[in-house]
């Protein structure tokens, strides 16, 4: 049965790619699951491929790209679901694509990026060898629901897994650490060294300031960003676990959030596959980012860096990453409100655009909700708008052309955009690229 589903799926995938010119990534899986809703379970159980789930609000794609890169550098065979195809049908499709016709998966490791709400469903189908919890932030509340609801769904899912499951969890996050401790699974912590933490006022993108155990206010001695750092509850004593992050790990990507992604991937590779830290560090030097995640493209002979920024915590991190370059900044902000972006754009008011203003040389704004973003920037400024510095364009191509036109020579245009805007932007840039 499943072998025939695999061959049928491969055929559908081929047709879908040919006819629609799309990537055809979820249809084969969708159909296979319709015909056998245990399809994923049935195929995986016949194989000894190690299964890794990657979950979290931000950084799934970058972390899975990093993990795959490190594993393959060390001759471990890996396949993964396509970026963004992180529902059950996407996972099933990747199995169809990578299994041979007898249902064998000729790979050592399968990496599945999973959507926040899909993780519990997927964990019912297959018991993973490894789960990675990167972070948990509010994101598209109209679509995902409340973060506390997701946290409790994750807790329930973990509690049902065999105690031999390896859980790699961000130990700087008070909620995720708590979930891990409650689950009783084999927990490995990752996080950042103290040198990346500082005592600062809490930002407005935080979600877990109160103790997950007793609901009293947590004390954060220091933080890296948002609600992540060195925390303790003075009421019940719950505190950050004792662990040592891998020292001096770096990658050619901007931003402290990418250090978390790197720590996550490196800790898995070190603890589970026994690869030496110095080898990992050497490997990381040649890492290239995933598409739309600090990817650098060329448009009209100028450099454009795309930073996917889709929720308060993620957007603040993108802003901080470019602010840390200490240079005058030229940015294009694109805010869409389609289904993959979330229909509600309220969250932009939880992002600290105030930090961008002092360093901004030019700001161009576009997207479906161009005027909402325009207002956010207007109200982030001390003084009233200077037209020279701020351009508002409804049309995305015109916005890009304007931003490029006013971009000084030898500078990079930073494009901070929501998901559908990122796809559109790449299409405009790569479609017009003269190579």
């Amino acid at each position, binding site marked *: 049965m499943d072998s025939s589903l695999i061959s049928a799926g491969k055929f559908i995938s081929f047709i879908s790619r040919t006819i629609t010119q799309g990537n055809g990534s979820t249809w084969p899986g969708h159909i296979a699951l319709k015909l056998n809703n245990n399809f994923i379970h049935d195929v995986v159980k016949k194989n000894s491929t190690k299964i890794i789930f990657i979950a979290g609000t931000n950084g799934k794609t970058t972390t899975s790209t990093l993990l795959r890169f490190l594993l393959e550098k060390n001759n471990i065979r890996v396949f993964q679901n396509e970026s963004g195809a992180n529902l059950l049908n996407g996972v099933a499709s990747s199995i169809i694509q990578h299994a041979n016709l007898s249902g064998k998966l000729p790979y050592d490791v399968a990496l599945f990026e999973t959507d926040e709400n899909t993780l519990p469903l997927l964990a019912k189908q297959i018991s993973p060898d490894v789960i990675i919890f990167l972070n948990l932030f*509010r994101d598209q*509340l*109209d679509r995902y629901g*409340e*973060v*506390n*609801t997701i946290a409790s769904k994750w807790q329930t899912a973990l509690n049902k897994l065999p105690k031999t499951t390896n859980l790699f969890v961000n130990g700087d996050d008070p909620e995720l650490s708590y979930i891990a401790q409650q689950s009783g699974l084999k927990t490995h912590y990752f996080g950042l060294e103290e040198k990346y933490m500082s005592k600062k006022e*809490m930002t*407005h993108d*935080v979600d877990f*300031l*109160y103790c997950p155990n007793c*609901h009293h*206010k947590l004390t954060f001695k220091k933080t890296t960003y948002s609600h992540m750092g060195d925390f303790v509850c003075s009421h019940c004593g719950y505190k950050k676990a004792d662990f040592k992050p891998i020292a001096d790990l770096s990658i050619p990507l901007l931003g402290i959030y990418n250090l978390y992604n790197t720590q996550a991937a490196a800790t898995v590779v070190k603890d589970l596959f026994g690869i030496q830290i110095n080898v990992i560090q050497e490997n990381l030097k040649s890492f290239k980012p995933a598409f739309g995640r600090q990817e650098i493209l060329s448009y009209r002979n100028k450099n454009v860096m795309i930073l996917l920024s889709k929720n308060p915590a993620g957007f603040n991190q993108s802003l901080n990453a470019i602010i840390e370059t200490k240079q005058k900044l030229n940015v294009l902000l694109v805010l869409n409100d389609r289904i993959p972006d979330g*229909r*509600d*754009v*309220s*969250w*932009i*008011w*939880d992002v600290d655009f105030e930090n961008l203003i002092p360093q901004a040389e030019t700001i161009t704004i576009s997207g479906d909700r161009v*005027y*909402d973003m*325009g*207002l*956010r920037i*207007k*109200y*982030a400024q001390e003084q*009233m*708008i200077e037209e020279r510095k701020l351009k*508002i364009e409804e049309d995305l191509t015109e916005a890009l052309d304007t931003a490029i036109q006013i971009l000084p020579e030898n500078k990079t245009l930073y494009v901070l955009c929501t998901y559908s805007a990122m796809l559109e932007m790449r299409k405009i840039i790569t479609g017009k690229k003269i190579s």
Partner: protein
Amino acid sequence: MKKNYSLTIGWLYSDLMSTYGDRGNIIVLQKRCEWRDIEIKIQKISIETKPEIISSCDLLFMGGAQDTQQEIVEKDLKGKKGKLLQKAIENEIPGLYICGAYQFLGNYYKDADGKKIEGLGIFDLYTINPGVNTKRLIGNTLIKVDNQEPISYLVGFENHGGRTYLGKNIKPLGKVIKGFGNNGEDGMEGAVYKNSIGSYFHGPILPKNPYLADWLIQTALEKKYQKDCELKPLDDALETKAHDFIAKRLGVEL
């Protein structure tokens, strides 16, 4: 230079009741005061703040939150803070209460499991959450504000499971033209009691509806200084564009 006017805005539970970009309301109030040389102080009020601080505020704001945070706030409001908040509202201190805050001010809230949670009883209304199998009321929305000349519209975004029903002693903020409003049934949205406004338009309501922000500022000034206070007009071209864009998106000709 000494400024002629000053205002203190009390931001209730800024760390707990602020999930949907509600901070935007505070930013808009603050900037629209600053641009007019009105001195402004934002007073954050949370669990650890002394309750008496509430009585020193000229304008109050409280946003919405998720269930876990609301439970923490609910406990705190049962104490002295709730009583002082009631006193301020009864004394006509202007205020804006969004989503969860709006529900708190009512008589009670019946949650998805049928459990009845007592409210502060300041607004004559109650809220019922019909349960997880009933659709949340989500989307862009537009209402026509009652008794406003010239006719004024408010645009916003709503996302709530609870259905709110007004009693006899309170007026709605406006009539729903597009969207769901208080309960998706009676065509009403929000509530107005004395100088306090409750609404489901979250995150945030004020940027695209600057006249509502100015009404709050002006009312606060007049209450504090006990005289007529005309606000200096600001250039609201961008605000108007953002407002009209939503109306157009919803297919409403203003």
